[in-house]
């Protein structure tokens, strides 16, 4: 019985088309019915056909109204059924209905302008999405070039992203002209005999999905490439370069690393942070064991900026980020322009510092054997050597 059921049904990918080309989809279903494949239901991805004797059917589509994800409401469905049209399903925000060719049912839509609001909305959404996406990509790409010189692999990813951007303009121009000329005001009747373009399923659905997939992969690979390629010593970083660096704040008592390290990372544990052009930034987080077995912890976020104003801004960002630390004490320490210290919760041995020296802003916390003065002196020495 189940085997028979399988034989009777045939599933095919739904030919997703723009609303204004919907006549071609209707005609495609009619052709299938004439060949003995009668459409039984429509889904977002797949249509279900039933094998029968060849028959003449009419299929009609109409745009979904807002809030009709589950299909037309009872009243509308019931009304259409009384008028001879059976609801089959919804795909790409379009409802599909069927009626036998000899049912005598009145044409579902007798006024082409019925589709005008939906078509206009669709075009506007497409237009603005494509425009915003293109502008964002155009704005982001130069920033990426400024702050991150890519290697061969990086170039490949950039080309992939660029290709995605290049796909946008034809549709953008087409939709823009359509909207500018207000073509929704005089729509031609739906051509129910239009032919479905060859390979439409391939072009319409998988290609757009493939495009999305490419973008996702490209962005992921791109981000991963940043992680790997920019794993450089601070001294090698150009101003404005996105950099992930080895720690330069290792104290004499930081000996043994406990953190699990990825295969491409030789020592320490670091995270890349996307920095705007103008300063580089790194964050390190270390745990170490002293020879007598005591645990030492050091976490550093450091931004080296192009100007003192930029450093002040970054410094204020750091303070905002750690706003939850109340009652920070301001210290006057030679070699630093600003130093704020927070002693942690009562009973804690951790010291938290916000430090700015010229063009550099640093936040770090330390738990270990070094005293506050020695720690700040070591940091001042490191900052001085870095600049």
């Amino acid at each position, binding site marked *: 019985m189940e085997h028979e059921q399988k034989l009777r049904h045939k599933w095919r990918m739904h030919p997703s088309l723009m609303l204004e080309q919907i006549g071609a989809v209707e005609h495609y279903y009619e052709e299938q019915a004439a060949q003995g494949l009668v459409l039984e239901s429509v889904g977002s991805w797949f249509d279900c056909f039933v094998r029968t004797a060849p028959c003449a059917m009419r299929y009609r589509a109409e745009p979904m109204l807002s809030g009709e994800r589950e299909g037309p409401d009872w009243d509308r469905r019931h009304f259409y059924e009384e008028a001879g049209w059976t609801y089959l399903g919804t795909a790409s925000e379009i409802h599909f209905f069927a009626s036998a060719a000899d049912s005598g049912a*009145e044409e*579902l839509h007798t006024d082409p302008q019925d589709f005008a609001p939906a078509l206009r909305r669709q075009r506007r959404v497409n237009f603005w999405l494509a425009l915003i996406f293109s502008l964002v990509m155009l704005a982001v790409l130069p920033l990426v070039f400024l702050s991150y010189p890519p290697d061969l692999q990086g170039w490949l990813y950039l080309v992939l992203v660029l290709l995605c951007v290049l796909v946008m303009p034809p549709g953008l121009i087409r939709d823009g002209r359509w909207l500018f000329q207000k073509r929704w005001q005089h729509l031609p009747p739906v051509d129910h005999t239009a032919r479905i373009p060859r390979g439409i399923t391939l072009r319409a659905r998988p290609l757009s999905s493939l495009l999305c997939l490419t973008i996702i992969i490209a962005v992921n690979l791109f981000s991963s490439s940043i992680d790997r390629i920019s794993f450089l010593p601070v001294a090698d970083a150009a101003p404005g370069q996105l950099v992930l660096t080895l720690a330069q704040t290792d104290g004499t008592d930081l000996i043994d690393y406990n953190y699990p390290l990825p295969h491409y990372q030789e020592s320490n544990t670091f995270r890349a942070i996307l920095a705007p052009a103008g300063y580089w930034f790194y964050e390190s987080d270390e745990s170490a064991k002293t020879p007598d077995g005591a645990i030492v912890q050091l976490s550093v976020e450091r931004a080296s900026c192009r100007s003192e104003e930029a450093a002040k801004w970054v410094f204020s960002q750091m303070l905002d980020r750690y706003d939850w630390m109340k009652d920070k004490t301001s210290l006057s320490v030679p070699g630093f322009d600003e130093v704020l210290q927070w002693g942690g919760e009562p009973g804690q041995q951790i010291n938290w510092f916000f430090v700015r020296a010229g063009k550099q802003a640093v936040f770090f916390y330390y738990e270990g054997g070094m005293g506050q003065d020695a720690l700040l002196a070591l940091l001042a020495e490191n900052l001085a050597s870095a600049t």
Partner: protein
Amino acid sequence: MSYDGGPMTEAMYYILLALLEPGHGYRLMQAIGEVSGGRVKMGPGTLYGALSRLEEDGLICRVDERDARRKTYALTEAGRAALDTEAARLRSMLADLARMKGGAQDGT
């Protein structure tokens, strides 16, 4: 497209005319055919969209029925006034036509 008080489309005029008696979707479709002597044919999809727009414009409203799922519509005061205005406009147009034709015949 919302109604701005100007000349009505044929579809809109016949929907309002058919709604002099409250009715629901399919009954309305038949009524429009009957009222227009079969000259105006409106598809169910077109009619449904038009009803939604007329309701948004406040020219028609839903009335309670035993089956709450079924939407039955009736003319509002604004709808009745719009229909009267349109009827007056059509009468005036016919009068103009008659006068012009009469004048032309007198001239010959």
